[in-house]
């Protein structure tokens, strides 16, 4: 009887404990709801890259990867539920894909010693690793985006935009308001006129904003939109015959589905980016051979090479490289979340590594450090060709105004540190 009880107890313990055989990557995706059109390609790209690593390389460092997908519907409460349900499964890094969820998870991930990667979204001041020990937002942030847009306007105006009228059409949310401070600071430096045009969720009706743009005739319109707001804005811009080449969206307003509904009229629209676009990379051959042709693609396979698919794939590649770094640091292939954080903080992305991964010139080279979790903040510009239905890079990845952004990051993170009584993490 005693032996039976011990066997049962041992069995129960084994069943209850987390399975540690794989490298676990949670995917907080949204394949349903109003933002599904953006969530699906990102989730597919993220999943397909890990499938490729398993099928082609047998995982990372000989350990298979395991993707645990949880549907958030882009809903903050559901996102937090997903985090709580997956954190005990051996999760190495969370990518919430939502600024709202990010804000909720910053204190939780720090307390649970699990790193979080918010690539091109989330809380910008989390780039200060001295305060935000577990949040990483390399290779670029919204504030880099704002500065990148202004730099691009400087470039095409011979370095002088004094007196130029710039309008910001933005989603009336924490996300949409992110660039305002940076743009206002840069306004002092370069002397342009800035007008702010908020659009309420979901953004299906924007007549007032575009009538105002038609009246005030800004030289350039910048957009911080997401979901249906993007498609309606591009259509309305076309309706008032605003020159598309003077309309520039942030990277969350620059996917294929944002421009396709407007058809030919969207030709010339521009968007910022922190990674390359298109299908002209060797990795897509490997994905076809090892993932699509074997029937293991995450979705229908129709998103491959799209802007947001590429972004998801890029996020997965950066996570995989961080795992390799962590494995080297700690001398073990089977790393845990805390070790993954160390790997992310010591991450070094070089062109050689990118090329070896089949992604030459796909993104900038950069190093992460304890102080700098935001990467180099290099920003490029893409443009939509409606006839060929393709995005193309029209600029290199250019540096942004880190003098202005750095000061803003220091100020915001210092306020957060004081509010939450956080000591320096890097000393």
């Amino acid at each position, binding site marked *: 009887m005693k032996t039976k009880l011990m066997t049962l107890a041992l069995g129960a313990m084994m069943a209850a404990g987390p399975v540690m055989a794989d490298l676990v990557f949670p995917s907080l995706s949204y394949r349903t709801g109003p933002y599904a059109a953006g969530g699906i390609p990102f989730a597919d790209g993220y999943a397909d890259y890990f499938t490729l690593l398993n099928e082609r390389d047998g995982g990372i460092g000989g350990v298979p990867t395991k993707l645990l997908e949880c549907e958030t519907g882009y809903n903050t409460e559901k996102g937090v539920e997903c985090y709580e349900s997956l954190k005990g499964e051996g999760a190495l890094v969370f990518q919430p894909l939502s600024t709202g969820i990010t804000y909720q998870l910053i204190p939780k991930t720090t307390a649970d010693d699990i790193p979080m990667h918010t690539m091109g979204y989330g809380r910008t001041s989390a780039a200060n690793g001295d305060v935000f020990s577990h949040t990483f937002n390399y290779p670029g942030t919204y504030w880099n985006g704002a500065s990148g847009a202004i730099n691009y306007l400087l470039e095409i105006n011979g370095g002088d935009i004094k007196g130029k009228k710039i309008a910001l059409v933005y989603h009336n949310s924490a996300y949409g308001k992110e660039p305002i401070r940076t743009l206002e600071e840069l306004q002092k430096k370069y002397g342009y006129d800035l007008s702010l045009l908020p659009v309420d969720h979901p953004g299906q*009706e924007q*007549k007032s904003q575009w009538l105002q743009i038609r009246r005030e005739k800004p030289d350039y319109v910048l957009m911080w939109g997401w979901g249906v707001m993007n*498609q309606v804005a591009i259509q309305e811009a076309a309706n008032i015959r605003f020159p598309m080449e003077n309309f520039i969206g942030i990277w969350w307003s620059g996917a294929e589905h944002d421009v396709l*509904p407007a058809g030919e*009229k969207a030709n010339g629209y521009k968007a910022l980016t922190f990674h390359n676009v298109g299908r002209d990379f060797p990795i897509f051959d490997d994905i076809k051979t090892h993932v699509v042709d074997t029937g293991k693609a995450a979705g229908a396979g129709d998103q491959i090479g799209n802007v947001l698919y590429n972004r998801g794939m890029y996020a997965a590649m950066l996570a995989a490289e961080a795992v390799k770094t962590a494995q080297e640091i700690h001398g073990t292939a089977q790393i845990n979340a805390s070790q993954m954080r160390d790997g992310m903080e010591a991450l070094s992305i070089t062109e050689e590594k990118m090329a070896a991964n089949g992604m030459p010139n796909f993104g900038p080279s950069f190093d992460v450090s304890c102080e700098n979790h935001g990467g180099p903040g290099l920003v490029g510009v893409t443009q939509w060709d409606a006839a060929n239905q393709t995005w193309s890079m029209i600029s290199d990845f250019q540096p942004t105004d880190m003098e202005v952004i750095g000061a803003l990051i220091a100020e915001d993170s210092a306020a957060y540190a004081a509010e939450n009584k956080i000591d320096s993490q890097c000393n």
Partner: protein
Amino acid sequence: MSDQLIYAMEVTLNGLMAGVLYALVALGFVLIYKASGIFNYAQGVMALFAAMTLVGIMNGQVPFSHLINAMFGTHIHHFGWHVPALIAIILTIGVMILLAWAVQYFVMRHLVNQEPIILFMATIGLAYFLEGLSDLMWGSEIKKLDVGLPQGINLWLDEVTFNIFGYGFFVDNLDIVATVIAALLVAALVAFSQYTKQGRAMRAVADDHQAALSVGISLNYIWVMVWSVAGFVALVAGIVWGTKSGVQFSLSLIALKALPVLMLGGFTSIPGAIVGGLIIGVGEKLFDFLIGPMIGGATENWFAYVLALVFLVFRPQGLFGEKIIERV
């Protein structure tokens, strides 16, 4: 004439056009509420479902293809043909009639004599079911809808107003077409309810279910008919809004725009939906133009509800709604 006044006139004109678009959505709510006393929470999702079905048929998309492919390992997505818009619209009307029958057969007939709140809850369930069904049938990606409706600035109006005021007004051709469609739709609905046998039967059911039953009117038939007409109105709204933004999940959220219209115009009046829509459209646009810049903008969403609430203080039944007095 001052620039501000000229701009206000342009904003008012665009507000009227926006109001018509809101009224298009509100009409579907009114029809069902009038005939059955049900506040159909699923009306916005019906517009989404109708528009997705229309695009799916036009593009020759295989319904449930993702499900079929996942289950059987196939790779089918399209039949390989394209259906002309008019035929696709007719086929979609057929699908909406089928949906109306299914709603009546599987849901509503089991809830006869239940409290209105129970019926309302049933429509919430229906909304979520239809959301899932739309995704499952046609996928979640954004689809371009082109049934030949014109879009872009109306050059004639631009020129005329420029000659008069020295500033050309912007009015979207799509909004003008939507106004014509809404006018025809309202005229047809009024004629239908006033001059046809089925329309009179519908009004009889709306007045008193028991009395209508006693003179031989089939409740099932009338409700299927009403849900079908509401489905047709949802299709029209879906086409207009879908042409504007592409057909996508957010179409279901246009119902949010109809609620203040209903509160203001009354839940039981077709003209009320139109007048309510126009007041809300003009009110929110003018407020955003005149007051918005002083308080940070983005006032349209909340101001529509504030305006509706102000009206409710003076006319709780809405502008054209029926005054209900219950004596105990």
